[in-house]
């Protein structure tokens, strides 16, 4: 038996440019199915409640309200998404929100500390709490579920100790503005909030510039790009959405401070997860820890950093929440961890880790937020709200599982 094989050559396997762009688009849709799906679902929910509430949902004051109501959950969801991508979980964030809120109250209300200093110290407390948990998870090797379950009890208990079981208030106005404030009005009187218009314009220019630069670089590297027509349509759609949103906000008090914080986090952490070495290592660890380690990923350090990041974000959320309530209370942040986890899974995270985006967490959080707000507007009781949110979570993840099975692994 002779099995002389000729080496298979690359003959005729170079597809035409048109075909390869099509493949690229298809691939992009397929791999982001969950996120696109949730974006469509979000749009559907918004339209549904917009009709149901006779247009109240998208009134400028309600949109501002919606953002301020959900800011702290979205901040938590961003951190939680990163934790889940790495294949971990954090159950302690709700308690940490309460603890940091309590500490900030003690610093500002009891000791009259300037609010900026108190804010910085609060974030530091969050970092230390995150480092504490990260140490046990990364270096001692205790599962994150256990460590953060312990943290959930520990920080809740510490909250009660610090507050001696009572609420502390009021906060200085500057601190309260983190949650309730808007960027100040400037310039001549127009119908709109001037700085908001400027910000909106800057955002559009920035987004278009970024897309343009990215496309130029892709062409420079001789990579396949989106067809020009489609690309232009995408830019127009994005710009239109930003402008509509800007006009809505500008016809009320303008951009809420929380929104600035959130957008800052979304852009910076989104960029880190996509383009920083450490961000890529998070995905690799969550996808296949053994393979990541054998590729030179410093698994312990990355895991540690993830939890420090989560701690800081939980502290930030704690400050925002305390500022919104205008009090440090022992019951703050109850079940926030579950809301953040639900937002992450609705937004495309996977139980086994390795997938998900920061944007997805925000979309997931918004789905929950709009549901909350919309259902309250049409007077659905919190009992039914819980039932519906539970079903939405189940449906979102169920859709993903079904979709993956259909495509075949």
């Amino acid at each position: 038996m002779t099995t002389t094989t000729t080496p298979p050559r690359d003959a005729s396997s170079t597809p035409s440019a048109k075909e390869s762009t099509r493949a690229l688009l298809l691939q992009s849709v397929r791999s982001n199915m969950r996120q696109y799906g949730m974006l469509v679902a979000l749009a559907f929910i918004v339209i549904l409640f917009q009709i149901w509430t006779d247009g109240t949902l998208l009134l400028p004051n309600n949109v501002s309200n919606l953002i301020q109501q959900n800011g702290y959950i979205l901040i938590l969801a961003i951190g939680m998404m990163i934790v889940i991508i790495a294949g971990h979980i954090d159950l302690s964030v709700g308690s940490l929100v309460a603890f940091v809120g309590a500490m900030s109250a003690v610093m500002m209300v009891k000791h009259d500390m300037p609010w900026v200093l108190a804010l910085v110290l609060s974030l530091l407390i969050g970092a230390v709490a995150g480092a504490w948990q990260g140490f046990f998870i990364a270096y001692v090797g205790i599962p994150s579920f256990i460590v953060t379950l312990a943290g959930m009890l520990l920080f809740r208990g510490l909250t009660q100790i610090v507050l001696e079981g009572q609420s502390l208030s009021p906060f200085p106005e500057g601190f309260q503005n983190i949650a309730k404030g808007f960027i100040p009005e400037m310039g001549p009187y127009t119908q709109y909030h001037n700085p908001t218009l400027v910000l909106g314009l800057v955002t559009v220019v920035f987004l278009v510039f970024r897309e343009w630069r990215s496309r130029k670089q892709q062409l420079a590297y001789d990579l396949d790009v989106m067809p020009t027509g489609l690309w232009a349509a995408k830019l127009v759609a994005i710009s239109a959405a930003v402008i509509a949103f800007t006009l809505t906000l500008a016809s009320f008090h303008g951009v809420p401070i929380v929104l600035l914080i959130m957008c800052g986090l979304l852009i910076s952490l989104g960029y880190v997860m996509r383009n920083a070495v450490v961000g890529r290592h998070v995905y690799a660890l969550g996808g296949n820890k053994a393979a990541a380690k054998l590729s030179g990923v410093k698994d312990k350090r990355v895991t540690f950093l993830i939890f420090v990041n989560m701690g800081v974000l939980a502290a930030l959320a704690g400050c925002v929440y305390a500022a919104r309530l205008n009090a440090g209370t022992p019951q703050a942040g109850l079940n926030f961890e579950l809301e953040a986890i639900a937002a992450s899974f609705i937004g495309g995270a996977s139980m086994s880790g390795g997938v998900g985006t920061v944007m997805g967490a925000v979309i997931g959080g918004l789905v929950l937020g709009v549901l909350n707000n919309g259902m309250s507007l049409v007077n659905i009781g919190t009992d039914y709200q819980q039932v519906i949110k539970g079903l939405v979570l189940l449906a979102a993840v169920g859709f993903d599982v079904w979709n993956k099975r259909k495509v075949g692994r």
Partner: protein
Amino acid sequence: MSAPVLEMRGITKTFPGVKALSDVNLTVGPGEIHAICGENGAGKSTLMKVLSGVHEHGSYDGEIHFEGEQMAFKDIRASEKHGIVIIHQELALVPYLSIAENIFLGNEQSSRGFIDWNDTLRRASALLKRVGLNEKPQTPVADIGVGKQQLVEIAKALSKEVKLLILDEPTAALNDEDSAGLLDLILELRDQGIACIIISHKLNEIRAIADSVTILRDGQTIETLTVRETPTSEPRLSEDRIIRGMVGRDLDHRFPDRTPYEGEDAGSLALSVAGWTVRHPVDHHRKVVDDVSLTVRRGEIVGIAGLMGAGRTELAMSVFGRSYGQYVTGTVAVGGREVLTKNVPAAVDAGIAYVTEDRKQYGLNLIDNINRNISLASLSGMRRKDGFVDEHKERSVSERYRKSMNIKAPTVFEQVGRLSGGNQQKVVLSKWIHADPEVLILDEPTRGIDIGAKYEIYTVIDKLAASGKAVLFISSELPELLGMCDRIYTMAEGRLTGEVDRADATQELLMRHMTKNRS
């Protein structure tokens, strides 16, 4: 000879794209110890899976006759009911359950749904006595050594009233003393009338206990040889005769011609490992790699041959950032300079890359795409001035590899888990080639991929050597090593047992070195 206990006739089993077994025949007489020999991938395990019902009746062609009746096992329970029990190489015991519970797992001694503990313990004690294991039946399996665990497996088989016992590499993980004890037990069981099929790479063991041996090669029965006339007589079959059967196939033109490296530093030392010793990560008494010293020069492809469990992968992984076992002694030098490869990043920095034998477990992030898998080991090198990864550069790099390595996927954003084995292997290779190491350790780079893709991989390896890289090539397929390597080391039981130049190398010679046991 009386009527055979087992007769397998014309067994043919195909997997998608591969014919694993082709018209295989096997006959085992009553009270016979029958060995099955063959290289890795010859079809031994598949044959045993057919016999034990892991591959259900109907998924293969051919007939199985057991005790004169034709059998159609639909699963492993069906074959066990008839007294055919298989003990796999990886033991199937639950570590935190007791010996007694493990023996009766799935076969609990119960009345009306509740376990009768007295009966369980009494019967377990009796079985332990029969296999000569001096442990309490309440002892958790995790607390006893591998050798004793093997005995528990046999006790478990006996509890099912076994008539034909199949042992897959039973002594691969055992030390000499435990191995000897196990072989004695098999002889004892034979005297009690239990027939036994034993798959083993250790030819001296086969000579020591088997009555006959069937040799498989490339999924076909080559021959069945008689080892001894009567159970008590001396063996008359030599190890060389078995080896000839195992490897006797022609080498044909399945490999690219080697291109020599013609740089100025050709022939200078690229990798040297000296006195490398590593202990087993759990069983600290076992030296998995024992005092290994080897060298690889620039532009050279050096093979490591060895049978399963010889310690090849363990050697490679421990050299690559001590990713396996417990380091004891030894030094590594790259390009003549000693390097401390304490962890993987240090090994990568020193210029070593390791392409794993188990790409799904240790090589790839299956849920991520080709692009990100290729870039993972060299992300730092793709950073812009601001410290962030240049996505476009990254994508152009992976596009380049997709084309040059002929990875069959429409774009680099295809999920790696969807690719075929050969294409997955090309992704792993791309990842490490782009990390630009001095030394590439390739561990079974062609395992589980079809012959066309194999040729492409060989071509890549040749190109690497021709560009001055040093390649350490671990493989279980001897023809592959003979076709590609300049020199071949052989390993057995953690030690180097030989070093053979390409000119002198034959499969028989390598196999003799590979089966050299201690003692």
